[in-house]
């Protein structure tokens, strides 16, 4: 016979307003509360519950009993009669006896009449693990018949049971109900091991929702499922940047971001601080690092601190995840375009863990269906060794990539073997060490690089480089941290060509016709982080960079200040202003083709921003900023639009049924356009950015980003819009976890069409506004020892037309279907 006292307890006849010091002490039974099973009514296996409500007065007597939920006779009258005889020590409130209402649940279980006195119970002991991951499942309810216990922290349990056959049932919020049939003999002990299946999210992909790091003014950090499960990104972390405020693209298929109206070449793409010369395979494909290696991405559209040098646009900094010393992971993925894998395992040497990953891409298989004269392929690799801990650690990270484009040779017949047209390759080996004793934090990197680009005409660009980077942060007082650092680069480049190298192209490359080039850069930084009060954070800093190529030298001095002020715990005001320099870089990152035309001098930008961020209830936050950038000079600006004179002299007319060329067919005009890349220009951009974001580990998460901006160039004596200026950019990203491990992702993007030139003036009209919708669906299937993630990702679901220029609409859809197995 069992009796459960339930939880309803009401104070009667007392001032309901309690003070901080008053506490209610419930009544305590001082008589037996056992109620005998009505013997004549025993029904084997039938469990009975009767609920009554009683009032216990200030003397502890039961004054009244009412049936709250009965089951019929003889149980109801048995309970009413027994409860009326209960005696209690009265409840007290603030030390004074008070009358209370109580709700009692009497639970009757048929007594094991024949067995109880003579049968020894059996025992079942077990381990609960999560199906697919083998993680322990703590605090789960384990029941057998009417007997119940909880698993401990390690997911182990022990339960005495009535001998015989019975069903073991395991229930826990967030997990599917588990049922297994067992048999235990009298006095026997049965050991079991159960795999319980999680009902919801994939634990490998949980979103870590933490306190925002309030350091940089404009930093947005994305991590977890925000990196790999955003619709329209094919699971590529770096493509997610294109959904953030301040970012547009030249065309929606190309992932290189146009950040706050600057050319893509002016934005730095880094992995653990190492510049990546080729971030996206084949310019429009996935990024060159396996997504499972990326832990987070910091995106700063501007206003970044002196830690980052050599860029006048924004910063995209991918952070890799160090391996734990005991970590074992296997990851295989396969989709229409590529196959990849990752292996992570402790090494025989103590404290070291190794990671090996890579991918092979075969988009050419699909493309060749439409065009047999073109073949595209790529591969990348990453190898990493991690050791140490937070106080002292080290890592070796090697990564590299190759892109290949093969075409039918000129004059060859259809079906002839394809020949390499373009090969882009790079390799990096990064050695890193850090130490932290609380007062001093040091971080040191030494990176070796090799870049190689080869075109059909035997034009070959290659370079060897060594980069050194060191940072030391001294916590002088709790309110004052001093950081000093050093950046250095030695780069030796070579250029060979049979048909190129002279004229504009040679000037563009900065070779001057010479086959060798050298570049030496040295950067020194110093920065203070002042927190004079809890509300203020001020970061003044300066970096000095000197660039030399053996013929000329250029120096950039970049003072920058970032400040934040907390109006209260949830509302921060922030501002930044600073100077930024960089060497000239080609508009789109190409291995061996960065830092060209060095003799043209350094590019310079002045960036200022002011904004606020507010933490809201329910995981929401909002961040608003206004900014102003002055860019003078600019080189390698991506400007395709013709001038008014071009329009008048060469109207944009093609043969019927053919679209006009993006570039003029006239050779002189081509040279003119290339010359324009090398003409120093002046630009400015200003705008308003808003990011409304919700982060949730198990609910709907995502963000709404909006940018109202204007980017202009001084051209022909007046300001005109930059070729890829977008007045409005709106992105809505949603991720909805659903039961049974489904996740639904949605992205909507709207951006104003790019400016176009007419006889009325430069950039006097615009292409059509582009709106696209992307969908992604993820399902994680669970096996006993591994997980299989199946996903469908469709970009531009209804083939919305994107107008690149008048008469040239592009309609595309990019469907991907893939699998990812995680062991």
């Amino acid at each position: 016979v069992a009796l459960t006292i339930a939880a309803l307890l009401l104070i009667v006849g007392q001032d309901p307003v309690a003070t901080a010091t008053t506490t209610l002490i419930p009544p305590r039974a001082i008589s037996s509360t056992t109620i005998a099973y009505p013997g004549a009514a025993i029904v084997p296996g039938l469990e009975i519950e009767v609920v009554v409500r009683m009032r216990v007065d200030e003397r502890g007597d039961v004054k009244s009993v009412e049936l709250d939920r009965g089951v019929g006779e003889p149980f109801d009258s048995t309970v009413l009669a027994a409860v009326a005889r209960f005696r209690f020590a009265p409840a007290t409130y603030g030390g004074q006896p008070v009358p209370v209402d109580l709700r009692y649940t009497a639970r009757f279980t048929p007594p094991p009449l024949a067995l109880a006195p003579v049968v020894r119970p059996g025992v079942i002991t077990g381990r609960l693990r999560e199906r697919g991951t083998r993680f322990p499942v703590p605090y789960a309810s384990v029941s057998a018949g009417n007997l119940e216990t909880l698993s401990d922290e390690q997911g182990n349990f022990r339960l005495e049971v009535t001998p015989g056959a019975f069903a073991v049932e395991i229930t826990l919020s967030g997990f599917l109900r588990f049922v297994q049939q067992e048999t235990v003999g009298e006095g026997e002990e049965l050991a079991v091991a159960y795999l319980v299946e999680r009902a919801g999210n994939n634990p490998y992909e949980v979103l870590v929702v933490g306190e925002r790091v309030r350091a940089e003014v404009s930093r947005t950090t994305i991590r977890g499922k925000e990196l790999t499960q955003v619709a329209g990104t094919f699971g590529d972390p770096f493509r997610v940047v294109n959904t953030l405020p301040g970012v547009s693209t030249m065309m929606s298929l190309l992932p290189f971001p146009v950040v706050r109206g600057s050319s893509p070449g002016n934005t730095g793409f880094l992995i653990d601080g190492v510049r990546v010369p080729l971030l996206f395979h084949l310019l429009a494909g996935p990024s060159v690092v396996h997504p499972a290696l990326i832990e987070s991405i910091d995106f700063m559209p501007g206003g970044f601190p002196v830690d980052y040098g050599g860029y006048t646009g924004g910063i995209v900094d991918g952070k890799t995840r160090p391996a734990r010393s005991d970590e074992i992971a296997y990851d295989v993925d396969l989709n229409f375009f590529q196959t990849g894998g990752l292996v992570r395992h402790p090494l025989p040497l103590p404290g070291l863990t190794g990671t090996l990953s890579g991918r092979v891409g075969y988009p050419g298989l699909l493309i060749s269906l439409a065009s047999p004269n073109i073949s595209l392929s790529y591969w990348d690799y990453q190898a990493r060794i991690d050791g140490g801990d937070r106080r002292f650690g080290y890592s070796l990270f090697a990564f590299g990539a190759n892109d290949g484009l093969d075409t039918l040779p000129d004059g060859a017949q259809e079906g002839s073997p394809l020949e390499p047209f373009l090969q882009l390759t790079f390799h990096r080996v990064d050695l890193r060490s850090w130490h932290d004793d609380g007062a001093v934090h040091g971080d040191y990197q030494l990176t070796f690089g090799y870049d190689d680009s080869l075109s059909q005409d035997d034009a070959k660009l290659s370079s060897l480089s060594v980069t050194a980077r060191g940072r030391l942060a001294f916590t002088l007082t709790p309110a004052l941290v001093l950081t000093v650092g050093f950046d250095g680069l030695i780069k030796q480049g070579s250029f060979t060509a049979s048909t190129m190298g002279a004229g504009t192209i040679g000037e563009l490359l900065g070779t001057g016709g010479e086959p060798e080039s050298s570049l030496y850069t040295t950067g020194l930084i110093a920065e203070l982080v002042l927190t004079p009060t809890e509300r203020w954070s001020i970061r003044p800093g300066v970096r000095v960079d000197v660039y030399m190529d053996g013929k000329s030298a250029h120096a950039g001095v970049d003072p920058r200040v970032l400040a934040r002020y907390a109006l209260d715990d949830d509302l921060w005001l922030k501002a930044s202003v600073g100077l930024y320099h960089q060497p000239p870089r080609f508009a789109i990152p190409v291995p061996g083709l960065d830092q060209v035309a060095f003799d043209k001098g350094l590019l310079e930008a002045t960036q200022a921003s002011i904004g606020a961020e507010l933490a809201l209830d329910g995981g929401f936050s909002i961040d608003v900023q206004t900014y102003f950038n002055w860019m003078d000079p600019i080189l390698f600006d991506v400007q395709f639009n013709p001038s008014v004179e071009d329009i008048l002299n060469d109207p944009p007319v093609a043969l019927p049924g053919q679209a006009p060329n993006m570039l003029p067919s006239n050779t002189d005009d081509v040279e003119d356009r290339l010359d324009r890349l090398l003409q120093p220009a002046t630009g400015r951009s200003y705008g308003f950015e808003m990011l409304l974001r919700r982060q949730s580990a198990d609910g709907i998460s995502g963000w709404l980003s909006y940018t109202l901006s204007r980017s202009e160039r001084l051209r022909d004596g007046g300001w005109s819009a930059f070729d890829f200026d977008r007045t409005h950019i709106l992105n809505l990203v949603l991720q909805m976890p659903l039961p049974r491990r489904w996740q639904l992702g949605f992205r909507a993007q709207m951006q104003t069409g790019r400016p176009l030139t007419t006889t009325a003036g430069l950039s006097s009209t615009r292409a059509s506004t582009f709106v696209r919708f992307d969908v992604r669906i993820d399902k994680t299937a669970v096996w006993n020892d591994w997980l299989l993630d199946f996903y469908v990702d469709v970009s531009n679901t209804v083939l919305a037309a994107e107008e690149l220029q008048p008469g040239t609409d592009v309609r595309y859809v990019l469907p991907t279907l893939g699998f990812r197995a995680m062991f």
Partner: protein
Amino acid sequence: VEVRAVITALALLVLAAVPPEPEFEASLETETPEEGWARSGFRLGLGYEYEGLIGVDNAPGGSVHSVLLRAGAKIDDVWSLFGSLRYGVIPGERAGLRFGGAIEPTFQLVDGLTLSLGVGVGGFILTTGAATPEPGATTPASVTLTDTTRLLGSCSGAGVLAIARVEYLFVLSGVLSMGPHVSADGQWTRCVEALGRTDPDTGEAIELRQFWEHHALSLGWTFWWR
């Protein structure tokens, strides 16, 4: 050697005394597959469809091979709401692509048999094989051709799509089912053919436009996952 032998024997005894670790077991089925599919929740379907496309008033027709992606939720015993995406290849001389996306409220007629009615967006990217109508080399602005007896040379455009679908599903397991469907749809498309000319004063493309009407009857098979 004797000490080593004793230690070895003791170790073997200890090992023999330790019971083997039990094998991990998953749960028994807690519901029948049919009960599972009767529950509300999310569903994903991937399917193939063969359709006969009939163009009205000389609009090009033919056969279409399509891939279907359908996703949505079963709301209760009677109603479901799905979204569908369809991408079809039109083979032959009039080669091209037919695409569409629709929202489809779905009504369960009897067990396993459903009726969906949907509206959405549909479109074409195709060549008709016809010569581009030449409205004149000095055409100052875009032209809409109302007469479909002279087709555009190519069509890139989208319009309104309405669809009705009847589907029957066989339950394969607690997570998989499949079945055939038959559907009928109508599509009204605003076709555009760019002439490669631009009004130098406004920057607007000069293009030919034509409205096409199509009806289609389709047979398909879809695999569903819950």
